[in-house]
């Protein structure tokens, strides 16, 4: 027993330095990539906006003033007012909360299910992997992502919570596929063979050796999926299957704006720009993480 513990500690001590060095090299490469740093800055600003929304927004997200409907930017606040007299800037600021929450929860669901399934399937391979898991993944991926999310949201009953779950479920196959592909590469490497040779069990090999070394592509996929989830939530809300029209979601603001395109361009412009910058931030961050993890991709 004590021998195992010592071995475990020993291997940990051995890997501390290279891991720290790898992290430092990763950060050095990331920092040099200006678009990636810009992406990180956007994500941080979005996060701060979501946290400090009550301090930043001049009005509450549901405050309405019927005397001030459809005021253009400048006269009716920074981004103008909507058809109910709400301040669009305040709603866009609060919208960051809903978008971040939706992307975190949906991507969390996808990781929570997709990574363990991909890990076990890729590690054990065989009939279950080839004929059950991968065929199901193939079949689910045959459905257009948005249609799948729409149908799941419709079956579950609509509303923001169910929209987040629906987006999460629709993302699962991506995470299964990416995790499995990485696990297939890692499981045959020398250190995994060595762990098996010293008698480590399957669970220990998977959680201590295979999974940690399969994380880089999962991390990249997570960052990119966050951006996609923001667009998906906005789309479902725009179609009436996500946030309720009164909620300050960027998608439901666009739904509301649809009827005023000819008279109040600002109602559609600002929420859309917010979505654009949020997604751009996650995409730049994802590209930057990928290039910093594997410098060959930037060449």
């Amino acid at each position, binding site marked *: 027993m004590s021998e195992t513990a010592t071995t475990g500690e020993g291997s940990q001590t051995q890997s501390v330095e290279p891991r720290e060095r790898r992290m430092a090299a990763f950060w050095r490469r990331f920092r040099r990539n200006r678009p990636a740093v810009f992406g990180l800055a956007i994500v941080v600003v979005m996060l701060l906006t979501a946290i400090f929304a009550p301090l930043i927004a001049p009005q509450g997200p549901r405050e309405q003033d019927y005397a001030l409907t459809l005021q253009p930017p400048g006269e009716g606040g920074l981004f103008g007012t909507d058809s109910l007299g709400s301040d669009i800037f305040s709603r866009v600021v609060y919208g960051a909360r809903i978008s971040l929450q939706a992307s975190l929860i949906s991507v969390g669901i996808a990781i929570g299910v997709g990574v363990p399934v991909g890990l076990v399937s890729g590690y054990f391979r065989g009939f279950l992997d080839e004929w059950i898991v991968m065929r199901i993944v193939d079949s689910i991926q045959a459905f257009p992502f948005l249609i799948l999310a729409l149908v799941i949201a*419709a079956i579950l009953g609509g509303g923001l919570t169910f929209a987040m779950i629906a987006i999460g479920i629709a993302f699962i196959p991506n995470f299964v596929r990416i995790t499995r592909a990485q696990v297939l590469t890692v499981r045959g490497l020398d250190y995994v063979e060595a762990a098996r040779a010293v008698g480590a069990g399957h669970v220990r090999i998977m959680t201590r050796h295979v999974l940690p070394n399969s994380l880089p592509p999962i991390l990249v996929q997570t960052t990119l999926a966050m951006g996609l989830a923001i667009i998906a939530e906005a789309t479902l809300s725009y179609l009436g299957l996500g946030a309720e029209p009164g909620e300050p979601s960027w998608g439901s603001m666009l739904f509301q704006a649809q009827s005023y395109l000819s008279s109040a361009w600002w109602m559609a412009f600002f929420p859309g720009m917010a979505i654009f910058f949020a997604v751009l931030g996650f995409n730049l961050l994802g590209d930057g993480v990928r290039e910093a993890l594997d410098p060959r991709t930037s060449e």
Partner: protein
Amino acid sequence: MAFLIRRLLLTLPILFIVSVVCFSMINLIPGDPATVILGPEAPEQAKEQMRERLGLDDPIVIQYVNWVGGVLHGDLGESLVDRTSVSALILQRLPVTLELALGTFAVSLTISVIAGILSASRRGTWIDYLSTGIALAGISVPHFWLGMMFIIIFAVSLGWFPASGYEPFFENPAANLTAMILPVFATGLRESAELTRMLRSSLLEELGSDYVRTAFSKGLSRRVVVIRHAVRNALIPFVTAGGLQVAGLLGGLVVTEQVFQLPGVGRLIVESILERDFTVVQGAVLTVTTVVVLINVLVDMLYAIIDPRISLSQE
């Protein structure tokens, strides 16, 4: 031939699971589907009739077999709202979606091939930066919002195109094409972004290869080397990416049709979901997904034609 047969056989389990998922849609509704569809206040007799219409009283396997039997004969059931044939509804809406999809694909291919080649062959110049910048912005923008901006700029402010509406091509070709330009470009620009990035990166890889260096050292012009040699090889991953994009594109059209009020299959799906007309949703989703699966088979065949090593390696 063996490659084609093998590829078609691999499609069967996928189509089977797709059919099971579509069939299960009604059975997966939490609670009693008849109550969900008709509302909790509906009389018990109406709910009973609905259960009978949906065949919910039969064992689930019998329900599936009956449904698949109908599907294989082109019968997708009838609408829960007005009893119209689902197949007829889809056939009526399909031309709009097909026209939109083909137009979008043509726009996205044209833009991505031009931008991808220019960007890779002039790496590090302003053309490259502009093209990669636009492509990056393109993948970050929700295309339905791009559609709304197009309506504001080109329909409302400039008055060049109608903001919404649809005329069938054979009834009024000019009005049809004018109405389709904005939706096609709004979706096509967005779709071209991913393809541009893909073509640029695979073309850059090819341009660094030994055979390209050899071609240059023989004294061939840059244009000949890029177009005749490098692009041809770079097209292989590009075709795959293009094929895979069809699924995303068809999904995206759901929302484009909503923005521009086009009466296509995507809008049919959204309208039916909002009306809880699940037999129509079931039929329309099955149709769209089957089209995606078959297009993927076609892409694989195309892939084998472009690169014969693929079919040989499978045999």
